[in-house]
């Protein structure tokens, strides 16, 4: 397919990589936090609740700048990661994935929480009386029942990551081949004369990916539902 230039292709591939990594990496913490917020009542519950939802209400640029302060080379977390583990996030694609994961996290957690809310606790009690340890109850009963919510949350997280702009460009800048995702590439095209073609092509790609993601999630959710109600 040569209707996209090599640079544009790079931006598309990078965007997909960043979004998939962001979505996958935030999945387990997302389930854990959703479970803790929905079922737990512990010290600091409200703090966690506010913290998780913060990216939803803060300007993305603020989140990006906070990441830069915390995870930059000289930031308190970034310096430790760089010195102890040799992991550098700022101005790398991994940093873009981190920014996207954080921006999408509240959406993921909310979707999972909503489906956890609808799970019939009595089914979990029943599983307990059948000899299942709480961990197995979660794995074999709760998790399958909230699968539709998890799928919905993953799609939201992926879509958010595909579209993330403010936090990403602030934290990891706009380096072609390293941190230039589709939104930053479109932004760059609109800033140079004659860039309209590239901006339009990437916009079309972006629309196509979003529709595909929605379609796949619908298909998966329908499969799950059919199993429940067959």
């Amino acid at each position: 397919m040569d209707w996209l230039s090599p640079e544009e292709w790079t931006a598309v591939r990078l965007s997909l990589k960043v979004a998939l990594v962001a979505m996958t990496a935030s999945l387990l913490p997302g389930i854990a936090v959703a479970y803790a917020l929905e079922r737990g009542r512990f010290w600091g519950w409200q703090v966690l609740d506010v913290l998780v939802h913060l990216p939803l209400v803060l300007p993305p640029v603020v989140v990006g700048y906070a990441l830069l302060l915390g995870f930059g080379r000289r930031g308190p977390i970034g310096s430790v990661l760089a010195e102890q583990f040799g992991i550098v996030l700022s101005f790398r694609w991994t940093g873009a994935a981190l920014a996207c994961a954080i921006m999408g996290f509240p959406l993921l957690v909310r979707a999972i929480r909503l489906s956890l809310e609808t799970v019939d606790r009595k089914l979990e009690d029943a599983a307990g009386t059948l000899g299942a340890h709480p961990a197995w109850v979660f794995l074999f009963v709760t998790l399958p029942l909230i699968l539709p919510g998890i799928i919905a949350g993953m799609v939201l997280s992926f879509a958010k990551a595909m579209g993330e702009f403010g936090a990403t460009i602030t934290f990891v800048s706009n380096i072609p081949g390293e941190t230039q995702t589709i939104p930053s590439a479109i932004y760059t095209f609109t800033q140079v004369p004659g860039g309209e073609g590239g901006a339009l092509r990437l916009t079309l790609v972006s629309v196509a990916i979003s529709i595909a993601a929605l379609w796949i999630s619908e298909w998966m959710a329908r499969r799950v539902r059919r199993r429940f109600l067959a």
Partner: protein
Amino acid sequence: MIIDVDLHHEQGDFRLDARFRSEGRLTALFGPSGSGKTTLVNIIGGLIRPSAGRVCVKGRVLVDTQQGIFVPRHRRRIGYVFQEARLFPHLNVRRNLLFGRWFTPRREQIADFDAIVGLLGIGHLLSRWPSTLSGGERQRVAIGRALLSDPHLLLLDEPLASLDEDRKAEIYPYIERLRDEGNVPMVLVSHSVPEIARLATFIVVLNDGQVTAFGSASDILKHARLFPRTGPAETGALVEARVLRHEEAYGLTVLQAAAGTLTVSRLDLPVGASVRVRLRARDIILSLDPPERLSALNVLAGVISAIEESFGASVDVTLDCGGDSLVASVTRKSVERLGLKPGLPVHALIKSIAFDREALGSAMPGNM
């Protein structure tokens, strides 16, 4: 001792004080709604932690608040069949049935899958999904699922409450077979006298969170005052009998009990089969002379063993009929007029209609 309970529990305004021991193969927890039956089984099953007390099942201490013992539900090995079947909607019937098996140590997997599926008549449902089952089918699968986790005790919390009479009639025989042929003792929560009369071997009566009586089913069912909210109409004696012969010409079946023979409408049971008959106190008439030239077919001779002290209009008179114990509800005036007193020989006329349909061990068509 199968169950040994001595506990106190408070939940908001509700107080439960339960103290009883049961040896029964099927122990019924009987009482009106709100009397604490479900709370009590939830405590036995480990879904609720009691405020104070002890729970022992088959000699194993499950709860002892003084010693700080509380065995979590998944280590109790107590099966629980809930009012609503609570089948897992994401698993088909076979996987629902085998769910508990995943968590049972291999050497303790005794329950035979095919035998239980056969006993409950659910073999044709194995590949179906719970959402496609009828209420009665769901409850049978739920019972099978609990049994296949190899429980030491099976709790049934009004498993038939949400079913209509026909569906109940469909499930009673299975519970009876479990009681008579299975090796898992059961606790059945119920507020229906006919139901416990048919199924229970031991009865614990609960009222407003208090155990007001417990004992063998035949002892408890004799006493009206134990059923304050259901009224004296429900008092009655349980009599075990065998099918003696069928009188096809009249459409009758003759039963042999210790007290004598009883004639009922034709039962679809083989000669020699055992049945349980409940004789309600209000359906028994006492006579000092052997009654003759009467249409009633069932007359048993006996001796008065006790007369309940009462200030109301009616009095419960207990009879000993060749070992079977019967209760008749008569007016205080009759007691005085006939001079009824313990030791007096009398004849008990049983209006045939008193053969309770639900109380008869197996389905029987109509009364006579």
